[in-house]
């Protein structure tokens, strides 16, 4: 068993993480220290929960775990995973400011992450490709674990392509770990009730920088099953920090809402913030288009190499 950090240890570790070398977006990352700090404060609990799930999914390994992390930039979870589990991590990223239809040069890029004094820097390869469009540049059965953490909601056209390709590159016995915000979360309802915007703002780093399509628990399960994944675990979690209410009534309301969302009721569970799924591939890779998520399933590509020529 691997020991996993508690939240304070985790935040102290993440505070030291710097991307030392990244030819793709390194320059932009260097100028965004405040935004990155906010990013890991929001996601630290999600990452700890995910580490716990990976630990349960892979209790014993006799070699480094082969991991593909989709949408790995800014590499915080990459660094956390490498700290906890013996693994060989390959990342994928889309350069900021790319348009979804724009062809990318599919190429490996060396990335170096500084992890604080006394720790060796983490070296990994991050491939630039569009997971929604390109055939993943890896042979079949080449990974034990594919991580798709808060990535699917950024896709604009068809998440099925990314799932079918993840299925193809997963080795038998491998797993997909997926986290995604729940569209029906209580926080969205509260914002709407208060007359505030509930959708994500536009993001200057590119179209895929913002949440384009979130999912509900039922939609995600349907999508995974349609793409030939067996869902082994699907949990709804409360993992984001809540801003402290400034008024007494606000604090009472927050406490009441938190208590309600913790209740073991289906309605309350379905209003929690985040969906975490652990799924295993079965059969052949499949482009599944559940009609609840796709307006004209027959019009979407039937072969996951159809959008581009296979290399």
């Amino acid at each position: 068993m691997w020991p996993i950090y508690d939240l304070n240890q985790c935040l102290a570790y993440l505070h030291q993480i710097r991307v030392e070398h990244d030819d793709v977006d390194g320059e932009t990352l260097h100028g965004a220290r405040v935004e990155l700090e906010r990013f890991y404060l929001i996601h630290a609990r999600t990452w700890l929960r995910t580490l716990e799930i990976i630990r349960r999914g892979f209790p014993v390994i006799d070699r480094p775990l082969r991991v593909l992390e989709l949408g790995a930039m800014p590499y915080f979870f990459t660094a956390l995973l490498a700290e906890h589990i013996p693994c060989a991590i390959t990342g994928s990223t889309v350069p900021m400011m790319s348009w979804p239809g724009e062809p990318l040069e599919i190429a490996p890029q060396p990335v170096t992450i500084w992890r604080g004094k006394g720790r060796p820097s983490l070296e990994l390869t991050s491939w630039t490709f569009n997971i929604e469009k390109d055939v993943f540049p890896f042979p079949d059965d080449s990974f034990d674990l594919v991580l798709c953490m808060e990535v699917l909601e950024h896709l604009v056209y068809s998440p099925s392509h990314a799932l079918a390709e993840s299925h193809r590159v997963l080795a038998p016995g491998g797993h997909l770990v997926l986290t995604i915000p729940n569209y029906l979360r209580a926080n969205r309802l509260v914002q709407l009730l208060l007359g505030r915007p509930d959708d994500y703002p536009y993001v200057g780093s590119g179209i895929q920088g913002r949440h384009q399509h979130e999912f509900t628990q039922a939609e995600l399960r349907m999508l995974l099953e349609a793409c030939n994944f067996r869902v082994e675990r699907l949990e709804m979690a409360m993992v984001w920090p809540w801003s402290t209410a400034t008024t007494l009534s606000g604090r009472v309301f927050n406490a009441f809402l938190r208590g309600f969302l913790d209740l073991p009721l289906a309605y309350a569970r379905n209003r929690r913030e985040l969906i975490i799924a652990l799924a295993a591939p079965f059969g052949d890779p499949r482009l599944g288009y559940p009609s609840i998520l796709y307006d004209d399933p027959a019009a979407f590509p039937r072969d996951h190499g159809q959008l581009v020529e296979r290399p």
Partner: protein
Amino acid sequence: MSRFDRRLDIRVAPDYMPPIDQGALLHYARAHRAIFAAAIQQLAAWARADPPLRILELGAAPYCFTTLLLGALRCEVTCVSAPPKVWPGEMVGVTHTHVDLHHGEQSWRAPVALLNLERELLPFADQSFDIVLCMDVLQNLAYHPTLLFCEAQRVLARAGRMLLTAPNGLSLWRLLWLLCGVVDQDPFAARGMYERRQRSSTPQEVRDLVSGCGFRVERFDLLNLGPLPGARWPRRLSWVARQLTTLPVASLRQRRDYLLLTAEPIGPPRAAYPPQLYHYARLYPRIPGAQYVGDQH
């Protein structure tokens, strides 16, 4: 067939794609008829006999409203549409083409510029239109609506007007749907990413954006105009929301399902990035000819 359907004999044949199915056109026109009627009523108030109004319609496809407009008012309409399958298709820049429109015995040919409104500048000279229509476009944008408003401001004549319609992100029907676990997101569309709604904006966000980009808002109404959904429960919830929001209570009026805005350009185009609407605004490409306020760039 209803009287409305009989009156609506529309055929649309774009030069750049196969003719649009007439049944689908009729369905679309029927669903949006309240929005179309409100817009034509507003445009009729601006109409003049000579010279005809020069109208630029952004996001014109499937050209239902274009056809109705040409039949109702004396005007010249230029259309801007997204190229078919803008994603997963490649970026193509600007293409000039046309669309043939038929309504009963009448026929028109309207010029069409195919381009991505979030990426390309409008291929028209400054102050070349009297009216810019931006009907049900804003909610489909995913990246950069400021570019659209700056460009609309630039191509509008100084006495011109912009007419905008968009769903109200704070509508009561949306709130009721979400409370009851009904998802209001559009499904992924095979015809491309701009065929689906990407973001629900609040009335205040729209007002801030439009006035920030160099417009003076003249009319700002919240109305019940949206098409009722077909599925039974969502339809009932929407109907209840519609009844409640017709009550003479100010807070309920704010929860109607559509907003209709008219605005006139004042001064030069300004690139506004309201902080509640944009993150990392400094990363956006600079808009040529627009004034920048504040230090976001």
